[in-house]
């Protein structure tokens, strides 16, 4: 925990983005999480991603539930909309907000307790409805705010700080998201921003339910020998399938790559996802193969990271519901009320 605010002075050559903002303009107030918390690195990655994408801060809504992870929206995007909901209810609040105003960029931040236990159902339904959002789970496998009890994502056999093994089967949120139809699914690690930042950028540019499971070591309760969510363990068992570059705009990729080494996916907004393959046989556009790959490597004790699945042609909840293009919360009486003539006509049709 740091008491002093971050000094306002910055590097004299701090870059500005297309909107004239610096990266510092995307920061929030000072974090009160434990020193070294992985969540702070994820916050920093979100700041980088929004800065690099030239996102106007006032067009972003950040929502969260309860837990260490859900505290973090205070620590980034200080000029964006925020909603700190009831435990596990972030997905529902986000869905409602999205229904009311489809024009904002929705960023849901949750934790393994918030999404895999109390809000498991909420999580599942927001994914299967295809809500247009970026849903990040900051996954540390423990309840940090209540002194480090195992959460539902803790691996079977992992040891607590006191040396007690976890006997329950772990929920793999990535596997669940794939099964429930998420159209952008990734996994990353708070200690690897080079991988995480592009993954968040791709998710923010994605239309539909984008889900990122981000392993985020709890330095206080889950960074010891025997933990499967520690910095050392994740680094040793990390099996990245690809390295992502997000290319904005509609420029074509002209460089030559050896056949099969690069996969390019065009998203709805025109952004291009350039995937440099690290695992030769991995196809990030094949959902079933992705699920199989995930299970096989999980059985080997490997943590598969990278952009695991993406559907470039995806739609979202509004497409499924056929709602108007104009945001519902911006409709006035004229737009909402068809008038007495229309009512008469409707009534007549029912007589």
């Amino acid at each position, binding site marked *: 925990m*740091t008491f002093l605010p971050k000094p306002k*002075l910055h590097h*004299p050559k*701090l870059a500005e983005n297309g909107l004239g903002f610096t990266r510092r303009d995307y920061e929030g107030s000072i974090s009160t999480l434990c020193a070294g918390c*992985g969540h*702070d*690195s994820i916050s920093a990655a979100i700041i980088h991603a929004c800065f690099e994408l030239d996102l106007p801060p006032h067009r972003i809504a950040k929502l969260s539930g309860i837990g260490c992870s859900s505290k973090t929206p205070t620590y980034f995007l200080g000029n964006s909309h925020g909603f700190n909901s009831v435990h596990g209810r972030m997905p529902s609040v986000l869905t409602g907000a999205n229904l009311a105003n489809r024009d904002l960029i929705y960023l849901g931040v949750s934790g393994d307790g918030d999404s895999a236990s109390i809000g498991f159902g909420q999580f599942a339904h927001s994914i299967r409805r295809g809500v247009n959002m970026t849903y990040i789970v900051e996954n540390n496998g423990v309840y940090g705010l209540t002194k480090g009890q195992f959460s539902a994502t803790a691996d079977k056999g992992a040891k607590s700080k006191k040396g007690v093994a976890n006997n329950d089967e772990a929920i793999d949120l990535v596997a669940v998201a794939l099964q429930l139809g998420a159209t952008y699914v990734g996994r990353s690690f708070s200690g690897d921003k080079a991988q995480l930042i592009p993954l968040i950028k791709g998710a923010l540019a994605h239309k539909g339910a984008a889900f990122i499971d981000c392993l985020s070591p709890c330095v206080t309760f889950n960074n010891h020998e025997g933990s499967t969510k520690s910095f050392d363990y994740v680094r040793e068992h990390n099996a990245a399938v690809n390295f992502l570059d997000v290319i904005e705009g509609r420029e074509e990729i002209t460089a030559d790559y050896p056949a099969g080494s690069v996969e390019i996916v065009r998203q709805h907004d025109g952004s291009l996802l350039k995937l440099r393959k690290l695992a030769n046989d991995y196809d990030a556009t094949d959902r079933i193969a992705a699920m199989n790959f995930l299970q096989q490597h999980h059985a080997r004790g490997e943590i598969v990271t990278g952009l695991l699945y993406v559907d470039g042609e995806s739609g979202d909840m509004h497409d499924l519901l056929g709602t108007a293009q104009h945001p519902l919360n911006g409709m006035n009486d004229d737009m909402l009320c068809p008038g007495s003539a229309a009512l008469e006509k409707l009534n007549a049709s029912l007589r």
Partner: protein
Amino acid sequence: MKPTDIRDPDYFHKVVDCQWACPAHTPVPEYIRLIAAGRYDDAYMVNWKSNIFPGILGRTCDRPCEPACRRGRVDEEPVAICRLKRVAADNKGDVHRLMPQGPFASNGKRVAIVGAGPAGLGVARDLVPAGYQVTVFDSAPKGGGFIRSQIPKFRLPDSVIDEEVGYITDLGVETRYNSYISSLKGLMDDGYDAVFVASGAPRGRELDVPGRQDSAANIHIGIDWLSSVSFGHITSIGKRVIVLGGGNTAMDCCRSARRLGGTEVKVIVRSGFEEMKASPWEKEDAIHEDIPIINFLVPKEVIHKHGKIVGMSFDKVEATYDEKGRRSLIPTGAIVQYACDDVLVAIGQENAFPWIEQDIGIAFDRWGMPKVDPVTFQSTNPKVFFGGDAAFGPKNIIWAVSNAHQAAISIDRFCQGQDINDRPPPGVTLASQKMGIHEWSYDNDVSIDLRFKVPHRDKEVSLVDIKTEVELGFDQVLGFKEAQRCLNCDVQTVFAPKLCIECDACVDICPVDCITFTEDGEEAELRGRLNAPADNISQDIYVSDGLKTGRIMAKDEDVCLHCGLCAERCPTGAWDMQRFLLDMAQVNPVPAKVEALA
């Protein structure tokens, strides 16, 4: 890249830019913290130990520290280091008690010093407490040298000089004022064990143009004129005054002339305004007193009628630069004329040693300067040492002080039969400042105040009396606020790779993006791929290997705010904030008792 060796005293010393730039290596952040804490006596003594004349330098120093100040690279202007020194001097109590208390047991060695300026008095201060019998000779009636004769009283009152010269003479220096040394040989025949020559650069450069001799009564050599003004021999000047020259002496001349009856005073320089040698703040002060500075004019002729000066003419020139960037001033053909009643010539100073005999083993170079070792200050006669302006030509007070410490060490080692080329190393301490989880023994909250201006007395008042000091100095409140602008660059970020878990917390929190964890590489290439461009190559990259992932930690020292947030966010204590204190070696016993500092 080669991992950084932080045990090399130079490494962290360079990070303290101000101290590194100070010729006397004054521990600047240390005394600024003491000022902020209201410990003016201690702040004064830290200065006194290093630079001997805190009150004088706090008004007049050329301040090489300020252009070096890190604050100037992250903010608009550096910390007002020089004027903070004055805050310590103005607000201190009785510091006499903190100085070495004589009489000192004699070691039987006698040292003669020629010149009671900053270099001469500096050597005296260092040698007397070590038991030397020191005699200082000066032709002037009082001590101080050019400090007293050249710097106008409206910048530096006599009381400040008297006080700080007094601290030295009170140690037990034998002073022989009003004693011009006309023969070095004669002095050496008196059996001194060593002689220190600190006679300055006493001769002003002559103006060599037609009409000069015909108007001699109204053409004055700047440094001689200032000296006469200083001692009260000259109290007036004509209404229209031309000052020739672009150095600080010219600035002192024109401002003095304004106070002695000059109503139309102008400074005329050969070079461009930007290339003038005068410090920017001295030029500002002159302009503030309604003195125009006219540039690119080369003196052509002094115009006179009936034996009386009427004006001067100048060739207008323009600067051209060849492909090597060397400047030449090319006449444009235009001639400019200005009327005047008096001319002050401040176009340079020269050394003069008519009193040093040819046959006493002291070699001079072809410019008439003594051959002096730049480290030991010994001349070709092993018993004779030079320092200050006498050694390397006109510089400023802080250089003279720095020379004095080194020359005193040499004289001491020489008199004790030790090798003078064997220089004693500085004393270095590095101590953690951690007090609690987020508590440090220094104030790590970075102030965002802009530099405060030193209050000046109104022109209406200050231009009337040449002895009225113009600058009022910071009061305690302003002094505190300005002190808080110091970034505490001496509180170093020290990295212990064995403890690091590479969680990136320090990288994320750093307000100036100076920390990067990355693959190793050659320095030039590495500088290009750090989190923020590290293109100030005068600033080091702190590199540490030994991390679990095989990467390196690379920290660009350039704009680090020393805010300590990296250490506060570090879960394992791999980063620590440690105060680096470097004390330059001086002659033993250490002349001052400085109380243990926080």
